[in-house]
């Protein structure tokens, strides 16, 4: 019951944030020097065409009415047309988003899957060499620009060792349409195409590492700190006194509560993950939404850019919602305290 009300509050809150976000984007899109209708039609348009589109878009109406239209368009999933591709922006984003989603998802798995155990190791051997090593790693991971790491990985794995592919999601020669979910890892399994699965994984590895490194360091650091925190708590002392075996103490009684701070921070880190995806996708020629965003920015393709910003924001809010619900599930205190 109490969990339900927490959930409702949290969802309402997310909706509010999204409305705010839409306002921000609307304002940015409207402070453009120049006429949105002319920009949408491109340089070859005649004045009559521009006037017609202005009426169509309602640009002659008051700003509040314009915002209403904008919101109405958003709810219908209508983000306007892209100048670059001459297609509806939502079609473009739908196609490219899957690639970004797959990359970011793998990045999160990698960051948590390696970062948390590293933090546990560091906490367990606190102030000994594994701890020092992990702390060093965490600091360097945090301060290495993701594009630089991406380039280094490309040189090392791509050019020097010839281990892994350095561009794209699949080899050009490979025929495969990810039509079910858009995620290669899932669709290839559904289709039973193990060769595609293997190639998709090989292509994913370098970009995911480049993108994950900073978050991985952050996770290791936080896990370490909160494990040490928890280990000082009375109930752990009690468990030790009761002679509960050490492995059980560490994994069961300490891990679950110490998992909360890294999980919460993961949500916030997510914004920088999306930002990082922009550079990493460019370096690895990853056909994702971020690469689409950069291409359209350079072409001054406003609808597309605003679409990308909006979708990034929605993505961020939804992930945070999911994480909050997960945290609320893991740690009952959160539900009572409210959010964070």
């Amino acid at each position: 019951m109490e969990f339900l009300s927490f959930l409702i509050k949290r969802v309402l809150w997310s909706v509010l944030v999204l409305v705010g976000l839409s306002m921000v984007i609307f304002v940015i899109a409207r402070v453009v020097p120049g006429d949105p209708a002319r920009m949408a039609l491109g340089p070859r348009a005649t004045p009559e065409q521009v006037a017609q589109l202005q009426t169509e878009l309602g640009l002659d109406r008051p700003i509040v009415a314009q915002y209403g239209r904008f919101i109405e368009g958003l709810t219908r999933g209508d983000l306007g047309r892209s100048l670059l591709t001459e297609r509806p922006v939502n079609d473009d984003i739908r196609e490219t988003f899957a690639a970004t989603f797959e990359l970011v998802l793998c990045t999160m798995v990698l960051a948590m899957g390696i970062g948390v155990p590293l933090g546990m190791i560091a906490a367990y051997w606190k102030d000994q060499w594994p701890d020092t090593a992990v702390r060093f790693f965490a600091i360097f991971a945090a301060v290495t620009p993701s594009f630089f790491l991406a380039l280094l990985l490309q040189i090392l794995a791509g050019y020097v060792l010839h281990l892994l592919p350095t561009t794209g999601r699949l080899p050009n020669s490979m025929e495969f349409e990810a039509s079910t979910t858009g995620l290669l890892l899932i669709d290839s399994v559904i289709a039973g195409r193990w060769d595609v699965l293997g190639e998709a994984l090989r292509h994913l590895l370098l970009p995911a590492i480049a993108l994950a490194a900073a978050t991985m360091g952050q996770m290791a650091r936080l896990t370490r700190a909160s494990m040490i925190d928890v280990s000082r708590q009375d109930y752990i002392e009690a468990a030790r006194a009761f002679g509960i075996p050490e492995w059980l103490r560490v994994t069961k009684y300490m891990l679950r509560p110490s998992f909360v701070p890294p999980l919460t921070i993961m949500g916030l880190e997510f914004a920088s993950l999306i930002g990082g995806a922009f550079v990493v996708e460019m370096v690895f020629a990853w056909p994702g939404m971020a690469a689409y965003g950069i291409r359209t920015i350079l072409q001054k393709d406003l609808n597309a850019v605003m679409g990308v910003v909006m979708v990034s924001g929605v993505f961020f809010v939804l992930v945070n919602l999911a994480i909050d619900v997960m945290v609320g599930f893991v740690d009952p205190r959160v539900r009572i305290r409210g959010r964070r």
Partner: protein
Amino acid sequence: MTLTKLMTTSAAVAFMALGTAGLAENVVTMNTVQIFGTIDPAKISDYTDYMAAVNLYDGLISVDSSGNLIPELAESWVVSPDAKEVTFKIRDDAKFTDGTPVEASDVIYSIERLLKINLGPANLFADVLTPGSVTAVDAKTVKFTLAKTFAPFLTTVPAIFILNADAVKPNEGTDDAQGWLATNVAGAGAYSLKSWDRGAEMTITRNPDYYKGFLEGPIDTVHWIITSDEATVKSLAASGELMMTSQFQSPETYKALVDMGRFQMVSQDTGTAFYLKLNTKVAPTDDIHIRRALALATDYATIREVIFPGGVLSTPLPKAFADFHNGDIPEPKFDLEAAKAEIAQSKYAGAPIPITLGYVAGTGFEEEISLLMQSNLEQLGFVVTQAADPWNRITEIAGKVETTPAVNQIFFGPTYPSPDSMFFTQYHSKAAGTWASMEWVNDPEIDGMIDAARATGDTAEQAKIYKTLQAKLVEMQPDVFLLTQTVQHAMDKCLTGFKAVPMQSFDYDFTRYQWTCK
């Protein structure tokens, strides 16, 4: 004994290779640096557009690497003595990709539609063709009646691609099928569109039933990847995915690809010129002395030898147009002292002179040239601003005098195999307002000479006019004549067939290419 054995073995190997060759596709993956703007034959305008169109559609005639007109859909043509009537005979076996025959009515439909939409190649036929100019003599014969004598007319015909009228008409809608032909192809080309993501790639596949047939070892699939990023090109080449580079990679990339062993460099002189187009209507390049100073402050040898390979360009017309090139004009010199003297004579002398250098963003060699210019110009008292813009932004700012930068790095190659293409599109006031005419010359005398050359069928007379025209343009200095492009590609050693063609990007008609490895 050993010899026989060896022979049998190799025969067996050859046989096996042949067996698999039947199964394996010949895929050519090539990178290109600009996006494909459109595939509608009535709208195609730039080099990249034509690269797709020439493979997806066929015209009545085409052009070979020497600039000669060669048959395509038309097997023969007759020009009337007064050069005002041209009659084409369409091949009996010419058919569209859907199997229906190509007929005179299709040609008429394609041209009427082109004139109505009035974009892309339509400007070639302004005042020359009007609705009704093209008539059917019979189902397989079509006659063009020109409104006035237009000497280069025949050389512009390859720019007209023939649509399948029966396939287009049901999709006309209210916009003459512009919406439908933006993503669909209805022609007689050797290739069909398989996929197209405007920002990223295009894939076309071979039509096995193509009426003209193919050479041995035909290219089954052509896959264009849109990227100018050198790292991506190298990485695609290293992983074996790339077969052919664009012509705009850096020398470092070409070298890296050749070092991989799989690639060879193919290079050819072309009729494409590389200019610094000077906006003659804005400060400071509105002053002839400043324009001359810019020409004298350009380090031609370094550009040609180190930054971008090319030959000497001394007039607006490259030497490739041998009969029309004015060989008496000396090649431009790099002389900073003389440049100083010119500046002293200009109305801007005595104070720092602000100047904007425009170039295509993300193009390495153009940025290097821009830096080279800046370092020389700063010694002469210019205050330089670099303006790097993406290509479609440049096409936009070229539309108005005020937004056109003072100096612009622009390549211009013949859009049809006639000197008229080089002069009309760049210097005639009727063609003003495009990226090809950023000089804004707008000079009645120049217009008159271009028109005079168009109105005569006499080649000697034309040559005389064009030579005077070149002298006049060099005198006016609306451009710095940087170089004639030596086109370069790194190509897989198994891929042959690249030959520069002096018309748009007809050199990327992939029916002319062969995969020679089995």
